[in-house]
């Protein structure tokens, strides 16, 4: 679908910017203002991506482009928000709640933090002068698409997590992003720095009411020092009419570990780009994902694992369950750069189609520029296994129960490695299919 220049989305954002710019966080910082201005200019020139861009070949954002979104947050109904926060809270976590793109301190509780750990609002950091963050506060974004540019220009808040070397956060940080209103665009931006040997678990959780047609355009940047480890879980439960476009990118230091889980359940159009660069020797990256679609949902995952230096290991498993007229896109890119000898990369994407109308487009791709490597990938699309179904029925389990059980078993794989009990329990409650009777 072509996106004409007169579609209202981008012009709306462009025209909102001049009056907004002075009120955005860090407006007093010249370097930050320059970045925002530059991003707006590039957004004006580039617009939103189209299906002629290889990265967006299977995902048309015409439905987003056609809408005019406001960027000003108005007053919210606090009771409704409270109820929503309560419903989505995850036990045993440090919680930051962002409503319509901005931190609400009264709903947040980061708990007592160990020395050397900061978990704050990015807006606060920017207004305080940005600390030492200039060089990694925002990426150069030359390659960013329209969504990345819009976020860079218009972000108002997000989480700032900074762990000094050796600091270990005992409880996960739960970043809960609640969007409440239709026709609103929010641009959360999260910056996470994990110092040498430090460890953290971060849950990035996006929710919204089912009836609202809003846009959540988020960017998360993660920097891992030597020997650092992060477990990043992205839990996307946007409302059924919401639009979600996310970009998570990690840069890994030597011997660091990036563990990413991506769960996508909501949204009418949801796209997540998750990338990591194994930028020093001996890095480990583990990416897993589960997308579950029904109705007319369109769910797109683009992952990129870039083995830039030797001795990196990556493991990736993405699974999809598509019902009704849902459509999923998976594009998994694994790059092994010329210097990255002794890289070891495995990637797998498996899809289950449950209905006549469901669709999957998958493209696992390998780009190998070094010779001493072990790389393999695989992709499958299919139905439930007829032999397994028969076996269960031959043991007396009814057909619909047997189906539900097999769907559940297929999806449950994606939970491997989720360590935090309450998070695991929450995810289990969201899995498709069912366990017909508890053991």
């Amino acid at each position, binding site marked *: 679908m072509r996106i004409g220049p007169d579609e209202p989305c981008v012009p709306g954002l462009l025209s909102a910017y001049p009056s907004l710019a002075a009120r955005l966080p860090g407006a007093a910082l010249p370097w930050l203002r320059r970045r925002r201005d530059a991003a707006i200019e590039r957004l004006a020139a580039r617009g939103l991506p189209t299906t002629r861009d*290889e990265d967006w070949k*299977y995902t048309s954002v015409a439905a987003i482009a056609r809408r005019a979104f406001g960027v000003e947050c108005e007053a919210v109904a606090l009771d409704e928000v409270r109820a929503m926060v309560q419903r989505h809270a995850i036990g045993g976590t440090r919680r930051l709640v962002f409503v319509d793109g901005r931190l609400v301190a009264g709903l947040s509780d980061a708990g007592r933090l160990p020395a050397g750990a900061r978990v704050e609002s990015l807006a606060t950091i920017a207004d305080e002068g940005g600390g030492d963050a200039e060089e990694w506060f925002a990426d150069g974004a030359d390659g960013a698409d329209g969504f990345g540019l819009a976020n860079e220009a218009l972000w108002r808040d997000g989480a700032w997590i900074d762990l000094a070397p050796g600091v270990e956060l005992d409880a996960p940080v739960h970043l809960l992003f609640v969007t409440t209103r239709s026709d609103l665009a929010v641009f959360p931006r999260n910056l996470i720095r994990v110092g040498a040997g430090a460890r953290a678990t971060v849950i990035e959780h996006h929710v919204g009411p089912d009836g609202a047609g809003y846009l959540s355009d988020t960017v998360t940047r993660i920097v891992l020092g030597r020997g650092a480890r992060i477990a990043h879980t992205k839990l996307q439960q946007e409302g059924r009419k919401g639009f979600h476009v996310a970009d998570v990118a990690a840069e890994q230091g030597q011997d660091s570990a990036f563990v990413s889980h991506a769960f996508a359940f909501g949204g009418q159009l949801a796209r997540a780009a998750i990338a990591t660069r194994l930028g020093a020797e001996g890095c480990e990256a583990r990416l897993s994902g589960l997308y579950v679609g029904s109705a007319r949902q369109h769910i797109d995952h683009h992952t990129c694992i870039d083995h830039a230096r030797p001795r990196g290991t990556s493991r990736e498993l993405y699974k999809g369950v598509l019902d009704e007229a849902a459509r999923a896109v998976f594009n998994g890119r694994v790059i092994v750069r*010329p210097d990255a*000898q002794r890289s070891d990369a495995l990637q797998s994407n498996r*899809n289950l*189609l*449950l*209905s*006549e109308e*469901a*669709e*999957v*487009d*998958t*493209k*696992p*791709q*390998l*780009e*190998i*520029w*070094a*010779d*001493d*490597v*072990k*790389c*393999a*990938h*695989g*992709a*499958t*699309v*299919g*139905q439930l296994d007829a032999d397994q179904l028969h076996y269960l029925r031959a043991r007396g389990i009814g057909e619909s129960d047997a189906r539900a059980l097999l769907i559940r078993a297929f999806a449950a794989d994606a939970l491997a490695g989720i360590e935090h009990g309450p998070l695991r329990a929450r995810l289990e409650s969201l899995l498709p299919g069912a366990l017909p009777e508890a053991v």
Partner: protein
Amino acid sequence: MGKRSVQLDELISQEYRHGFYTPLDVDAVPRGLSEDVIRLISAKKQEPAFMLEWRLKAFRHWLTMTEPRWATVRHPPIDYQDIVYYSAPRAKTDGPKSLDEVDPELLRTYEKLGVPLAERELLAGVAVDAVFDSVSVATTFKEKLGAMGIIFCSFSEAVQNHPDLVQEYLGSVVPYTDNFFATLNSAVFSDGSFCYIPPGVRCPMELSTYFRINAKNTGQFERTLIIADRGAYVSYLEGCTAPMRDENQLHAAVVELIAREGAEIKYSTVQNWYPGDKDGKGGIYNFVTKRGDCREANSKISWTQVETGSAITWKYPSVILRGDNSVGEFHSVALTNHWQQADTGTKMIHVGRNTRSTILSKGISAGHGSNAYRGLVKVAKSAAGARNYTQCDSLLLGDRCAAHTFPYIEVKNPTARVEHEASTSRIGEDQLFYCQSRGISAEDAVSLIVSGFCKEVFRQLPMEFAVEAQKLLGVSLEGSIG
């Protein structure tokens, strides 16, 4: 490790074996491309009006197109006005009536290439429609095949003698609007092969064509059209070598296959055009559009290719599985060394019910060679019960080569089952060591392992071709693959 690399370098840097040039009298059209040039080509070939019209439509469409940029290949810009679009060996009369009339220089060329054209080749069971530059000069076996109703001739002859068949099928698989290179071919193609197998006939011999690029700066625009009517069977071999030249030469062929109900077409290619020298100078640009159409039920088309030549290979032999229960296969070995680039693969388009496809791709990269598999498996909503299995393996020899895999999988029917597997690895140290500890030299061991890596594909080739394919791999890897 260091020692082994040196040996590898030596054996992957062997020079192209078929590099020689035959000075011949050439009857060429002026350089460049315009409607006048197309009219001239059509007139020289005394084509009926529908052909000229088709060419002109293609040319006008081509003017609106731009070169594709998505492949992972790089080359300096091609000046399409600096190409001679038609050249033919000068005819002594209206055309040679027998081998005696063929330019002896040309015959010697074939001899050097080992093309089985003379009487003794009759015994080898190969009918050859040899394309020297752009025009067919000799065809054997025609009478024997003719008795069975099989038409096997040059495209030009088919246009003259079977215009109805040409008009019915030309462009029915690869329309003139298809892509930049296919459209160019449609406008200017000079000759090629034509083959029609009538209903129920099994072609008793492998049909074969040897292509050869010779005249300086002559783009080669062959067009091949093969039709297997109901229940027919044909196995077709295409082999290529080209003499060494300094300047890059463009080759943009189109092959169209049509299999009707219950018919089967096997199309095998050994491509060994000049790859350029070890510094990446020269070499053929091979931009080919090959597509088969399993038009009716229970038909089968299989492509087997061994691609060792050309500076750049850009080809995706594809099958449209339209008929119910039809079968598509693609078996490929692509080897790139020095500075060669290959972006090759296939498209399997499942439209009919219970259609099946198999893709087996083996890529070997050496030196600075870059090898990309690019494939599409598409299951349309109508293709209930479709099955695809894809396996892509890459073998890396040397630390400056590259291997890429870009499989596109699009599934719109839940009863489809699609599986894709790919792996990339370098030649195994332990395998090499094992061979060496059994007294096999390093280079023989590499040959052995590479040839084992490709075995499943070679098995698909007709016997004499399999032997040649092994030899061609040897050109790059070692002289005596055993």
